[in-house]
């Protein structure tokens, strides 16, 4: 099987497993799901060491975009927490 097919199948399997497990535990936070999926994407991309340098560059660019998205999620959550009215 081609390395790239294995890579796509690994991503799909891990994503599916994550969604099933988090759904099983009644998680309804979109940012939690997305943060975990982005983290898994980065880990799997690093683990596949046989990829061509050109493929790796392309995937690193995608990682950078996802990382910016992850930071945006983090920023929105942080702002939400900071702007919460004090309930004392």
């Amino acid at each position, binding site marked *: *099987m*081609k*390395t*790239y097919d294995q*890579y*796509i199948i690994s*991503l*799909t399997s891990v*994503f*599916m497993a994550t*969604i099933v497990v*988090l*759904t099983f535990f009644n*998680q*309804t*936070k*979109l940012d939690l*799901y*997305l943060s975990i*999926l982005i983290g898994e*994407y980065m880990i799997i991309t690093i683990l596949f*060491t*046989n*990829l*061509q*340098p*050109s*493929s790796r560059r*392309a*995937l690193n*660019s*995608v990682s950078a975009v*996802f990382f910016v998205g992850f930071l945006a999620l983090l920023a929105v959550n942080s702002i939400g927490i900071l702007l919460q009215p004090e309930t004392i």
Partner: protein
Amino acid sequence: MIMKNMITWQNNRYLLLGSGLVTAGFTFALFAWLMTNYVPFIVLGLACMIIGIVSLALNHTLKKVPFDASLLLIESSFDTINAIVEELSVTSKAMYLPRSVTDGPLRTLIPIQNDAFDSTLPEHLEQRLIVQFGKNPEDIGILLAAPGAALLEIDKIENYLSTELATALSSIIVGTFDLATAVDVQRDGSFIQIMIKNSTLSRGDEFSHSILGSPMASITATITAQALNQPISIDREEVQGKGHKITLQTKDA
């Protein structure tokens, strides 16, 4: 017509997969958000989009030469060399040379006499079929295109050769040409042991294999010679289950 369709499909499958997943994932996530607002369904759509984007990113890195054509290139180059070495009754082992020695394409030097192989190689060899590689008159060899060298001209292979040997071998053999599932490299002095797992290349028993090594050993030696910038000879090779163990020996130019 069927062959053309097959090649078109092979060259575009990540594009088709990526476009399909991004479109389907976006539509699914949008409907899930508007109609049910059930987060796992929305995430399922977004996960499809992520995989689709990854497939689109991989699309432009597909190799231009189909896998079967790659195998055909390797086997045809072996047939040519087989005919030459059989005609000349050469029995000594070939030496794979880096570009720095040949000043051009990757070549393999087949000494005509067995005992001429220990000679010190000159820094540069002439681009001729019959070359004198040592100081003694009997140090004469045949300089041929390395089997599989044509493959290494494809797809900017030079970029990978500047990396570490294990990475270069793995990127080219596993990542680019899909000729095996894994490559393990161990160095012991002037010997380099390379274990190729699940090789897809045949290990036929042709006469030229005793001189050049099997197709996989030959490709490995060609890459190693260029990556280390040293002449390489195939010391021995053996099959261990699904593994193909190749021992290479480096020689200073």
